[in-house]
């Protein structure tokens, strides 16, 4: 097993409803404080609105709503995680985010079969780092399902 740099990937860790998630830092553009989100009328429920980020208007999605948790008011710890997936820039609203972490590949195992259903599709793997369990997200899936849902629910 390769323990060199190529064997570990950098992840950005964030918290959502008490659980720690990780996304590959290569897919993350930046982390921003949330100032103001302009709501978009008649958009899907998970779409909080648009924000202006690096010269571009991008959608801001409530990841809580996406994952079926209750929405909470934004506070000082709330972050907008701007990700770039499939050439789209999208902002994910998360409870807090602070850490970069190198996670060696051998610490990441595939999601258990028991986790099928909805959540199962969002997961690329589960990492056990010391005492912590980190759920690694498959961003392409998170975004994709979102898009099809919009097409279906649009008025």
């Amino acid at each position, binding site marked *: 097993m390769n323990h060199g740099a190529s064997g570990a990937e950098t992840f950005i860790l964030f918290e959502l409803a008490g659980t720690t998630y990780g996304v590959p830092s290569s897919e993350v553009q930046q982390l921003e404080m949330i100032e103001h989100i*302009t709501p*978009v*009328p*008649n958009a899907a429920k998970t779409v909080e609105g*648009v*924000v202006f980020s690096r010269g571009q208007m*991008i959608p801001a999605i409530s990841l809580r709503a996406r994952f079926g948790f209750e929405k909470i008011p934004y506070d000082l710890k709330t972050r907008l995680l701007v990700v770039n997936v499939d050439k789209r820039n999208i902002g994910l609203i998360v409870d807090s985010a602070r850490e970069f972490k190198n996670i060696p590949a051998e610490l990441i195992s595939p999601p258990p079969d028991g986790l099928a259903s909805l959540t199962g599709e969002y997961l690329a793997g589960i990492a056990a780092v010391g005492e912590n369990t980190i759920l690694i997200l498959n961003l392409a899936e998170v975004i994709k399902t979102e*898009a099809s849902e919009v097409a279906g629910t649009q008025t």
Partner: protein
Amino acid sequence: MSETEFNAQFFDQFLDDYYAEADEHLRSVRRNVIDLEDFFTNGQAVPANTLNELFRSFHTLKGISAMAGVPAAESLAHHMESYLRVLRDGQTAISGEGLAALVRSTKKLEEIVASKRNNAELPAIDGEVRRLESLVPDTPRETDAAVHEVPQRRGESSIQSVPRYLFTFISAPGLAARNVNVNTVRERLQQIGTIIKSTPTVRTGGQVAFEFTVETSAEEASFESWVDDGIEYEPVVAATPDPAPADAPAAGDGSRSGLPGHSNFVRVELSRLDGLMLMVGELVVSRAKLEEQIKRLGSEMSAQQLSSLEETNHTIERQLRNLRDGVMRTRMTPIGEVFERLQFAVRDLARESGKKVRLETTGESTEIDKMLVEKVLDPLLHLVRNAVSHGIESASERKSKDKPEIGTIRLHAATVGESIMLEVSDDGSGIDLENVAARARSRGLLSPMDYPAGSALLDILCSPGFSTRDEADKASGRGVGMDVVRRAIDDLGGTLSLETRADLGAAFTIQLPLTLAIADALIVSVDRERFAVPQSGVREVIEIRQSAVRRLENNEIIEYRGTALPLVRLSKLFALEDNYREAFHAFVVGEGSQAVGVAVDRVIGQSEIVIRPVSDPLTQVPGITGATELGDGRIVLILDAAAIARRLEQKL
């Protein structure tokens, strides 16, 4: 940059130049062919100038197509040139057949250039070539010569009297940096003599080499040193009598591009101007922020300090507006170019359909954003086609209606405030409302009780797949429908409206914003949200009292300028709270019977906005065209007034 990369890039750049130059010449060809047709139909003599210009254009098109390696275009242009030569020299007179062949061949040339540009398969030219050949009296041997060879000038000796050299130029990054490229090399060669032939070749390893055969009486000493610039040469020994000296265009070969005074023009890539426009946009936002801050600080400053700050702010505002106008002007090009292409299409359609149609154009000098030119051509083309095939009646039918035998289609362009108005009207039969109603009912687009009128009529015509033609007719294939026209105009932030009167004709009006990047907008508020509405689509802002609103079933109507104006509440469409204040504002969009009032809480101001697309599918919703950043840093959404007005129709 590697050598291969350089070559690839160089060749792309070279091809771009070719397309631009070919477009310019095709434009001039279209104009002259139309003139030619006018002279012919009016039985007037064709001025030598028209023929000369056409001849020169084909000559140049042939030359540049050879350089760019497009033999189909080269060959076709060659045959057109041959025909023009016999016309010019009076060996034969222009005929209806000849005109038709020129029109067809010009269209084919356009197609070839377009296909090359899109990397599509090039169309065949056999038919056109045969027609052209049959027009040239006892086609001399010269037309059989290889297309690269320029046919010999009449009456000139074919014996080579002037020495010839084969120059070879291979481009390289170092040379390009010194401005030694194929164009400057060509210019140099033109200065010392006449270019007989030019061919690009791709050497092993992907290098692009250009070979020029040049006739020159200049001493070798005068171009010996060019070897340092990558220009090699060798004398050409004429073995066989060679078809030869160049048939230089009448104006001399120096005018390679055929553009009068072309040294005063700069060809700029549109993307660079887009970049400039974006920068201006950013400045506009920064200034708005500055103004916001001045307002906030106002109370903490002396009146004098404040007024001098405000004065500076206003100066910057004015200067910025001038800058914006200046940048915009560099992107503007007269709509006449589009009209000429339509002129061309109309003649062709009239010929095909056997109807008698003439096209009148006014406002050709109206300027339009270069980017809009290509995008507006297709919708206009479609409207014009419809006018010929659906609007204008056959000559006999027109006679029976006491109308002039020749139908008229009018194209009109004008700048109206911050927008451009384009109108396509005809004096034909008008839209057959009975036919439209019957078809709309059979497709469930219209209830049996209703009659198509106003914007409802336009909505029916613009519904996907709607056609008043019979299936058999449709098979002849005109492709797009009105839905495509409306979508194209919507995408440009414009509006489409229609007026029709039985036996008097129909008029379609397109209104487009002057520029797509920056606009003057009204800022309106609903509930706690603000929205921007581009002013180009707004006719008027009115204040309304709740008591003046009449209810009719589910609709709200107000009296406006003597007519009933439907009211659509933005709060309802966007599921926002409506406070139903006693007095509120509405802005009027749409023309004539298609006008609606869009009710908001208040119009709170006016602002110059930079339009940014909201392109992610997650945030694309009907009624929103983009978003903009206001001076206070907040993002507001930009309303698509036309779409909002239409949604009202659908909800009724």
